């Protein structure tokens, strides 16, 4: 039950984009079309789950035993960057269809701070392996939800007359802010 709550909390209450303001770069950059936003969302779910699992392993099997946990940031960055590169190569070879769908987004995720954020959150809250992975799945699903909703709104806005001064990016930022306020309505619903 707690595990389900963990996922729900990741999607709605602790939404990485809307409540914690992580992963803003791809959120704003890849959200002009719902198609690409969905692709990005899927890619993030994929990578974040893998990264959380790998980060948990590195943390518990290397950093903790060696008593160098204060280096977690460097270790995680190293890990995530290599992992994404590796996943990209692996997919290209073994799952061309998946690569076609996610390929262009993978390099972008290397620098997605939400991925690092999940790894760090897992560590700070002391989640075990399963909880870490589920937290990542929930968080990534929340990212996907946020970016797809946002892209849908932006598509509609693009068809409308907006004041010249707000055209394009300013409008996107305002929209993102309003969406964030809406998501903050969930805050406190689930206490973990």
């Amino acid at each position: 039950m707690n595990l389900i709550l963990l996922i729900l909390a990741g999607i709605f209450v602790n939404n990485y984009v809307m409540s914690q303001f992580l992963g803003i770069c791809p959120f704003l950059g890849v959200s002009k079309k719902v198609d690409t936003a969905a692709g990005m969302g899927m890619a993030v779910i994929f990578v974040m789950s893998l990264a959380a699992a790998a980060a948990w392993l590195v943390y518990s099997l290397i950093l903790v035993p060696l008593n160098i946990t204060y280096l977690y940031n460097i270790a995680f960055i190293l890990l995530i960057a290599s992992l994404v590169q590796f996943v990209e190569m692996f997919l290209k070879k073994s799952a061309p269809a998946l690569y076609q769908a996610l390929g262009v987004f993978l390099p972008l995720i290397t620098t997605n701070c939400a991925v690092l954020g999940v790894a760090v959150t897992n560590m700070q809250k002391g989640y075990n392996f399963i909880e870490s992975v589920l937290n990542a799945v929930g968080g990534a699903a929340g990212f996907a939800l946020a970016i797809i909703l946002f892209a849908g709104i932006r598509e509609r806005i693009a068809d409308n007359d907006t004041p010249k001064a707000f055209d394009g990016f300013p409008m996107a930022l305002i929209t993102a802010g309003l969406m964030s306020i809406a998501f903050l309505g969930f805050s406190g619903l689930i206490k973990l």
Partner: protein
Amino acid sequence: MDPMSIVFPVLSIGGMGVVFGACLGVASEVFKVDEDPRIGQILEVLPGANCGGCGFPGCGGCAGAIVAGTAPVNACPVGGAAVAEKVGAIMGVEASSSEPLAAFVKCGGTCDKAKNKYDYEGIDDCNFAVQLAGQGAKSCSYGCLGLGSCKKACAFGAIEIVDGVAVIDKDKCVACGKCVSACPKHIIELLPAKKKVKVQCSSKDMGKNVIPNCSVGCIACKICEKNCPFDAIHVIDNLAVIDYDKCKACGICANKCPKGVLTGKRPAQPAAPAAPAAQAAPAAEAPAQEAPKAE
């Protein structure tokens, strides 16, 4: 201070870096994409201008699509038959259907045949003219404005403005598609160069709205559709459209068209000098009633 407290972290993080790096290095060998050799070969054969005329992002995208089978071996319109043959050899496919394409202006509304709503005295560029009321001076909202944006876009000097309508010299045209994207009216299309029968009209207005504006506009009478022995021409959205997979360029539709919207007439009758070369032959489809020989 224990020197080990420095050495240890350095070694462990450095070690992680080395291990990850080694993994990536090994992975790049193990997962080397072997789909590629042909892509490289095709890329060498392609013109390499990255013009995007094929519809893919540059020659690399085109080569990838050819190898993936999503594009035909003759996907490169610029290279034409010569390149298609080489690509076909690499792919092990006969470059059978390498039909050369040429851009074609789907409007025959020259100054004497199509009316204007007003006199335009602005910047000599279609893209400016379309921003004005009525999207340009021509009464027909689909017609060629004749201000030469396509001509400026053409790097091969294949486009001339003749009598208020752009005309493309298909011998000079390499089918790069620059004019296609330059035309604000979207009336230029890459069509098989050898097929002489072409619909020289883009109007999707109903016939009764076409007639007052242009004497060579398609009025959707469907005479071409009824007369085509190959089921190759159809009136879609009030405009004749030719399916070039089926079209045998027999010219029957062009001869039957009461408005002269179709190019490629045959000199079937006494003295009708069929002139496919002349874009002047306006093609039209199908007004059901009389057929003033519009040529």
